[in-house]
């Protein structure tokens, strides 16, 4: 079984929710058998995620039955779900029973199987294939394909990252090793399960036979902290924005007794905040790990050893066990000297198979051969530690979720086909530049709503004209001089 689940002590608790739901390792191992008569091999399932044991049980159940799960947010809303349904035409949906009415109404059928407060819906009746189109009948998912994750949150076309079992298991093993995770750990879920970083926390702890504390409460709610205290959580993870909030909540003024370590990924943390948390960790005998990853590398590629946190401020560390970095110049050749910036290239067993943008793409095999062009510009210091200095492509991170500025522009162009609109900005701050005053006022809310992100990260800027060079290319530096 994945993560060698069958070798764990069956009586140990694998998943515990704040509502009291318990799933032991033995139950988690038996679950795929219970699901077996309802699902077929090499079929596609949507796993609508929330931080509860049912979501994890379904994820394991599908993988063990060789059904491929696509992890999606259970709260993403009907419009986004329909867009994924139309593009990928899954065979099954696994969703929380709290959504039963909505899903049943949408699919016009009831769930065929229930467990752990989740239900299984079938979209194509096995006896009557009329709903399944001809293309799907001949569509054979690639034998290596094990898991699908969506990139860049929810922008535009639903583009997926294809992962193998080797990707998932090798990354979980590397994380277990460098964070020294053993069966005594009790991580509390502070990130969404469908988010690669959140899922990697679950994977690495299942591998280590640990007890995972699952709550739907966020760290700004009392329920989260009460559960953390009651069950003596030993770790949690956060994106830079999480740590900004925790600082504002004055969490780092005192000890959190049960916590052994904290992790951070999903964007660059400011040096000031890294230092503040590093000092907190030092004072109270904790470990704080700054890390680096992408969905395309299953989750993680680098970590800064906790004892280097204060010495190497601003660094995302070194490659994880089994992985290797190098920096490439514009021709793709390796740069050997220290402190020279170039594109960061990663090689390792956790590099994804390739992207999918249609159902047909799920038939193709590995296209990357273990090498990932990260699109990030980085440099390495003399001691071999890496620093991100910028991005090659027009991506920024909004609260830890990668957002493509090009896709933002495409979304806005659909709403305002006549207008001239350019998106720019920095992490957690998207600027919409437009030559239309009215649009500069109305567009931030529209874009925030479609991306399902907080309005505070978006602003509209009215400009008389979009500056372009003689070749007609947009001069971003000139445009964003207000920043």
């Amino acid at each position: 079984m994945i993560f060698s689940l069958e070798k764990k002590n069956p009586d140990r608790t694998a998943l515990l929710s704040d509502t009291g739901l318990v799933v032991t390792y033995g139950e988690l191992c038996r679950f795929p058998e219970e699901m077996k008569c309802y699902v077929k091999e090499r079929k596609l399932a949507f796993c609508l995620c929330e931080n509860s044991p049912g979501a994890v049980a379904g994820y394991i159940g599908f993988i063990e039955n060789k059904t491929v799960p696509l992890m999606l947010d259970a709260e993403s809303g009907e419009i986004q779900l329909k867009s994924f349904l139309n593009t990928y035409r899954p065979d099954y949906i696994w969703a929380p029973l709290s959504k039963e009415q909505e899903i049943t109404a949408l699919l016009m059928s009831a769930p065929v199987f229930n467990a752990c407060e989740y239900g299984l819906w079938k979209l194509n009746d096995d006896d009557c294939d009329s709903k399944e189109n001809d293309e799907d009948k001949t569509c054979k998912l690639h034998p290596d394909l094990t898991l699908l994750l969506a990139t860049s949150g929810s922008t535009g076309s639903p583009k997926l990252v294809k992962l193998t079992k080797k990707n998932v298991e090798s990354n979980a093993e590397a994380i277990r090793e460098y964070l020294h995770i053993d069966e005594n750990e009790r991580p509390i879920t502070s990130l969404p399960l469908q988010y690669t970083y959140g899922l990697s926390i679950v994977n690495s702890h299942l591998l280590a036979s640990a007890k995972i504390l699952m709550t739907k409460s966020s760290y700004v709610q009392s329920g989260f902290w009460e559960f953390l205290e009651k069950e003596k959580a030993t770790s949690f993870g956060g994106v830079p924005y999480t740590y900004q909030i925790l600082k504002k909540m004055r969490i780092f003024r005192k000890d959190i007794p049960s916590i052994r370590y904290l992790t951070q990924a999903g964007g660059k943390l400011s040096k000031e905040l890294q230092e503040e948390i590093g000092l907190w960790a030092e004072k109270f005998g904790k470990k704080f790990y700054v890390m680096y990853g992408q969905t395309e590398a299953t989750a993680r590629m680098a970590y800064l050893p906790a004892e280097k946190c204060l010495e190497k401020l601003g660094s995302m560390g070194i490659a994880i066990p089994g992985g290797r970095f190098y920096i490439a110049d514009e021709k793709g050749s390796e740069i050997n000297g220290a402190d020279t910036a170039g594109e960061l290239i990663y090689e390792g067993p956790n590099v994804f198979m390739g992207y999918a943008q249609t159902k047909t793409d799920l038939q193709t095999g590995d296209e990357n051969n273990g090498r990932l062009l990260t699109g990030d510009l980085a440099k390495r210091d003399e001691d071999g530690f890496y620093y991100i200095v910028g991005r090659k492509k027009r991506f920024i991170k909004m609260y830890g979720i990668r957002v493509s500025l090009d896709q933002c522009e495409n979304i806005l162009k659909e709403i305002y086909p006549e207008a001239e609109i350019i998106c720019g900005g920095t992490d957690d701050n998207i600027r919409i530049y437009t030559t239309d005053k009215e649009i500069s006022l109305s567009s931030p809310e529209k874009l925030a709503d479609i991306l399902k992100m907080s309005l505070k990260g978006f602003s509209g800027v009215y400009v008389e004209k979009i500056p372009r060079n003689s070749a007609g290319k947009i001069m971003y530096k000139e445009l964003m001089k207000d920043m």
Partner: protein
Amino acid sequence: MTNLEKYNNILKRDLKATDDELNDETLVYNRYPRWDSVTHMDMVSDLEENFGVEFDTLDITGFSKYSLGIEILKKLGVQF
């Protein structure tokens, strides 16, 4: 402007809520679509700034629906 009006205006602006949504059935953390962790912290900052108070950790985590914000402000000395 009364303190209640001031409070209501901050919530309406940050959550893009309407007058008839100003109640405990509608304005609940995570249930009301725009009340996520990001907006939550913005509201806390705006309330602190406008009423000249400072929320502690328990105040921040305890503010989970419309009326609880008023209760916390009362506890911090704001008259309603």
